[in-house]
């Protein structure tokens, strides 16, 4: 086999959550894979002749991030995002593998749509790995199950009606059972629909003062409780998406203690552990997201759940919307905010720098945690492994003035965040490089 050119990453601090270690090392990459990880080269750094050298002194070198909760809008709403622009946003955020949700138009609930999305995803494979989460029910309407077996055979990584919960508990149970036989899982969006009633933001101090209908915190807890009861009596694995309340994480914590640890996982999103309902006052619809931004108590509870391991992963819930849609006002604007590009910086700014968790734990929640949820081998920094990396400066600030995403509905627009991504490598190729750093 012909040997490809060598790339040497010199002077970085390797963050390897799979091995639970951090160390300074140089990494040699060839043919898309890690050829050597060598601590001996450090003093002074030795470079091999004919090798491209990338000096990253002061930067952290970690496995490329896995984002298990991403909404790309193709097909159906390409004015918000396409696979191509989503891939650009991913690499700018250091994401090397993302799992896209099925709430496209039409929904990914059949072979034809699946193949269409798969083909669009494959077109981006030089930049990022895109995997598909298929719908649990047809049209995500909750009434009629999709052919889970067929979709799994096509390659669907998991199943979810995200954007809405799996409304019928019996269908949820059947889906949990069936996916257990296919080494897959169900991801549920926890929200008791009957309690929403036109709510736009968290039901609390801000909603009352603005006179905007609120989404009660119980809507999430009721749904989480139901899901846990259903899971108990099934054979499957369940992952609860974007938990936002104290009650929800407490329910998960208890359920895990009571024997469900291997079958129940959950994620939180950066905006939920970084912002509170108060953000709505300043940013209006840009801070409108589902589940909504909650209270300080909830943020604190999420931090505690992250610290004690109740939370298995951080995911962006990247949900692009165009300016005109977000400018319709709090009630009419759609829920959601983009997050691929800010996921790592928000995590570093709001969790690592305040000392809530270590950088190693943060990277674990963004790489090995998601891999464990998906029952995949954890990304490792070892010879022979794919050279998929995010290289970033944990202590350097970046002000987000623009995004690679086609949309810019982010409450972090114009804000400075720590944790600037210097480069992203995918199969040994530098697919993103921030020239200003």
């Amino acid at each position: 086999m012909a040997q490809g050119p060598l790339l040497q990453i010199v002077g970085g601090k390797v963050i390897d959550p799979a091995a639970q270690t951090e160390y300074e090392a140089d990494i040699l990459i060839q043919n898309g894979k890690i050829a050597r990880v060598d601590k001996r080269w450090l003093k002074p750094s030795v470079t091999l002749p004919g090798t491209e050298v990338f000096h990253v002194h002061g930067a952290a070198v970690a496995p490329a991030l896995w984002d298990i909760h991403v909404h790309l809008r193709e097909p159906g709403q390409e004015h918000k995002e396409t696979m191509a622009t989503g891939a650009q946003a991913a690499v700018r955020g250091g994401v090397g593998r993302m799992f896209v949700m099925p709430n496209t138009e039409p929904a990914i609930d059949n072979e034809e749509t699946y193949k269409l999305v798969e083909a669009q995803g494959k077109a981006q494979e030089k930049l990022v790995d895109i995997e598909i989460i298929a719908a649990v029910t047809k049209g995500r309407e909750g009434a009629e199950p999709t052919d889970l077996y067929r979709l799994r055979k096509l390659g669907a990584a998991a199943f979810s009606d995200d954007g809405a919960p799996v409304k019928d508990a019996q269908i949820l149970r059947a889906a949990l059972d069936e996916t257990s036989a296919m080494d897959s899982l169900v991801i549920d969006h926890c929200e008791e629909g009957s309690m929403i009633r036109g709510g736009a933001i968290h039901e609390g101090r801000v909603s009352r003062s603005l006179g905007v209908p609120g989404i009660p915190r119980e809507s999430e807890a009721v749904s989480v409780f139901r899901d846990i009861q259903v899971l108990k009596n099934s054979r499957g694995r369940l992952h609860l998406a974007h938990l936002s309340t104290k009650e929800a994480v407490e329910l998960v914590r208890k359920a895990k203690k009571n024997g469900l640890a291997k079958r129940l996982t959950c994620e939180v999103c950066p905006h939920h552990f970084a912002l509170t309902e108060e953000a709505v006052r300043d940013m209006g619809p840009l801070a409108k997201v589902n589940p909504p931004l909650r209270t300080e108590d909830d943020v604190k509870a999420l931090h505690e759940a992250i610290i004690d391991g109740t939370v298995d992963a951080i995911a962006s819930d990247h949900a692009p919307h165009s300016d005109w849609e977000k400018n319709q006002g709090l009630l009419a604007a759609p829920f959601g905010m983009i997050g691929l590009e800010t996921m790592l910086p928000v995590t570093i700014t709001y969790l690592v720098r305040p000392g809530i968790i270590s950088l190693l734990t943060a990277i674990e929640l963004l790489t090995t945690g998601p891999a464990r949820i998906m029952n995949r081998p954890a990304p490792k920094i070892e010879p022979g492994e794919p050279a998929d990396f995010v290289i970033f400066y944990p202590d350097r600030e970046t002000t987000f003035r623009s995004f690679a995403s086609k949309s810019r509905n982010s409450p972090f627009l114009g804000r400075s965040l720590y944790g600037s991504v210097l480069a992203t490598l995918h199969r040994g190729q530098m697919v993103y490089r921030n020239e200003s750093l």
Partner: protein
Amino acid sequence: MMAPRLASEKRPVKKAAKSTAPSRHLLTSAELPKVWVEALFDEARRFKTAEKAGHPWSEDLKGQHVGLLFFEPSTRTRASFHIAAKRLGADPVTVEIAFSSVQKGESLEDTVMTMEAMGCHFLIIRHGEALSGQRAARVAKKAHIINAGDGSHEHPTQALLDTFTVLERRGSLAGGTVLFLGDILFSRVARSNIELLKTLGVKNVIVSGPPSLMPSEEELESWGISYVPELNKALAQADVVHVLRVQLERHGQKMPMTPGSYREAWGLTEERLVKFCKKDVLIFHPGPMNVGVEIDREVADGPHSCVLDQVANGVFIRMAILKRLHQAC
């Protein structure tokens, strides 16, 4: 003729009910004592031998009326009981439920009492609700109640004819592994068969099929059987495979799998039969079959299939049941 060689392991009598023969009714497999089953099989075998020898049918039930109360559709069971009754000299009386007073709100109990008052000595009941046989038995003064399938609960006469057919083909069940494949959760056939096999001392009973159509681990444990999620592994162990119909009408909702996917994932296809099953495996199906879904046509009609034996033996078993219940009191 030799009696069938049943597994000889001695096992404790679990339920008090098993120590007393079902003197008047046949409601559940779970309550059938082993000796009663063995005597029943002897009787069925005698009927079968007599038929082969061309002997005239007995008149054991002459003058008796056998009421067929089928609240659910049935081809095999109903016709089988009808023929069995006729061969014993009895008069079968079929109540067409669609045209009966049940449509006017008459209860099961009222129907049973009415039929008995008219002189029915036997009432064969197929009903969509579990324990309907027990309900009937509570109000019947003299008539024999036979459960011909109650919801997803039990179908004891099917279990008896299945087991009789297995023994006829195999000689013994000792040490063999019996697999029930498919919709176990909603299968009265599986429940009755499993109970009967336990009574006869068969220890290796396994189930396989879609996880969403399996009873809970707790329930399987209480039955003393295990779930083998990998179909090919389950097939490789089995000496007898009972393929079960997907009981869509009982699920209350659609499966997260189309018929095509079901076949691919859980169907007993010819390819699987050749590749994974033992050379002398026996294939059973209680019918009606979803051909091309849970079982391929080539398998259902192939040399391993016992489907038509099941149907033929059903008549002899039901004759024996009618005769023995009649003799009991």
